[in-house]
């Protein structure tokens, strides 16, 4: 009950913030070229769906984001499993991975353009490259950190190599992997937007950039709102899946 009251309080704060936004816009404290009134942004949103191809752009971004992320995550987890389970592999590979970790994935965009041109394939390549790292690194960590006692139980019970991976190592690494997948999805959204901006691919990145060039601030805000919505839904969905998959974590350990 109390939680609900706080939720309403939060909604009230949001309403107040929007009202403030409206006031600032009405008083023209900030130029309307840059800050549209909330009502105008809202209108632009619906107009975009009704009369322009905003829907197509929305789905374009979603497609780019998810397609690259799914494939990359699969390979990232699989590769991470191989590297993480083997001490020898870790010693050779981990330092290189640590070096590559801070590298911005966006830096490979020009290389990808040189290879594939300004095409959807380029975007898939870049998004895949960007989202494989969080999945790979999280997977390596998860597989390397399996409770040693459980590995002894695996030996004691006489489980085969594959049984061990499937029944013990993989479930043990799942919390880390899910966290890495969530991060990967955030990265893939960003890279999708950047690729769309640069290569003019069908998506919200292109929409907002074109709106910026035409100084249509209401359209920009409409696009940004949708991008925020995609980020929100993607993150919330994965958190839900995480919560369900990890419900065995006792309230005891907190």
């Amino acid at each position, binding site marked *: 009950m109390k939680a609900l009251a706080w939720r309403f309080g939060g909604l009230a704060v949001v309403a107040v913030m929007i009202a403030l936004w409206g006031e600032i816009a009405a008083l023209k404290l900030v130029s309307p070229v840059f800050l549209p009134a909330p009502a105008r942004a809202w209108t632009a949103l619906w107009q975009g769906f009704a009369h322009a191809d905003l829907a197509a752009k929305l789905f374009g971004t979603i497609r780019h984001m998810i397609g690259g992320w799914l494939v990359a995550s699969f390979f990232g987890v699989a590769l991470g499993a191989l590297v993480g389970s083997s001490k020898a592999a870790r010693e050779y590979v981990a330092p290189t991975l640590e070096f590559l970790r801070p590298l911005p994935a966006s830096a490979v965009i020009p290389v990808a353009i040189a290879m594939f041109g300004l095409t959807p394939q380029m975007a898939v390549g870049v998004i895949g490259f960007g989202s494989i790292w969080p999945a790979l690194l999280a997977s390596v960590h998860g597989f390397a950190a399996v409770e040693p006692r459980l590995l002894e139980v695996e030996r004691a019970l006489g489980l085969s190599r594959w049984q061990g991976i499937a029944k013990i190592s993989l479930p043990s690494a799942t919390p880390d992997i899910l966290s890495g997948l969530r991060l990967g999805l955030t990265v893939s959204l*960003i890279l999708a937007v950047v690729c769309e901006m640069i290569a003019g691919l069908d998506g919200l*990145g292109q929409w907002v950039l074109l*709106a910026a060039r035409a100084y249509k601030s209401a359209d920009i805000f409409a696009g940004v709102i949708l991008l925020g919505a995609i980020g929100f839904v993607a993150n919330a969905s994965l958190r839900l899946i995480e919560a369900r998959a990890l419900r065995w974590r006792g309230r005891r350990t907190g």
Partner: protein
Amino acid sequence: MKALKALALPAALVVLAEIGARAAAPSDSVAPPSEVAAAFVQALADGSLVTATRDTLMSAFAGLAIGASLGLMTGILLGSLNVLDRLMELPLELLRPIPSVAVIPIALVALGFGYRLEIVIVAFACFWPLLILSRAAVDGVEPRLIEVSRALRLTPLQRTVKIVAPAVLPRVFVAFRLAAGISLIVAVTVEIAVNPQGLGYEVMTAGQALRPDLMLAYVLWIGIVGFAFNAGLVFAQRRLFGQAARVEAAR
């Protein structure tokens, strides 16, 4: 021995790249490591590398400073005032998922190309990790210490400065390290997407000029800068906080 093992894979990759790139020559997208190294030296010599690095780092640092300090202050505020924290939960939840690159067009219209555009975007990106992690750090301050501050009748300001701040410092530093990494990535991304300055822009121009050796040199350099930056901060963390940081960071 460990160092040798660590270098084995990169060394092998460099050799393979050299052979493979030479075999595939001439190409617009790949160049052998030897040519990449040559291009790197050239860019260093004629000053373009230095200028670009300076531009990127200046924007990254400025954005980091602004975003991180705003995030820190807000985080401490929310962590300390429960009412404010619960009211702001929803609004922040709605704003956080907006990707930093989505803010580019808005800033572009307002500020045009240049340093300010980049600084604003970087600040936006660095704000969130500091906010979330410093808020959590304040939340995690040993309740016993808060009781002590009440027993000593400290004012809220005194309590914040004398007890909360030192207690959260190690975790805040870890958050800062995270934000620092983000600042560099976002700065380069903004340059690749729209901004005609800095390392990202140099990579793009080299690619468009069909100079894969120069392009890859810059990509590698970006990686080195990012790695060095993070390594420097890890070193600073160990020196400043020693054991405490490792314990706190593990939480």
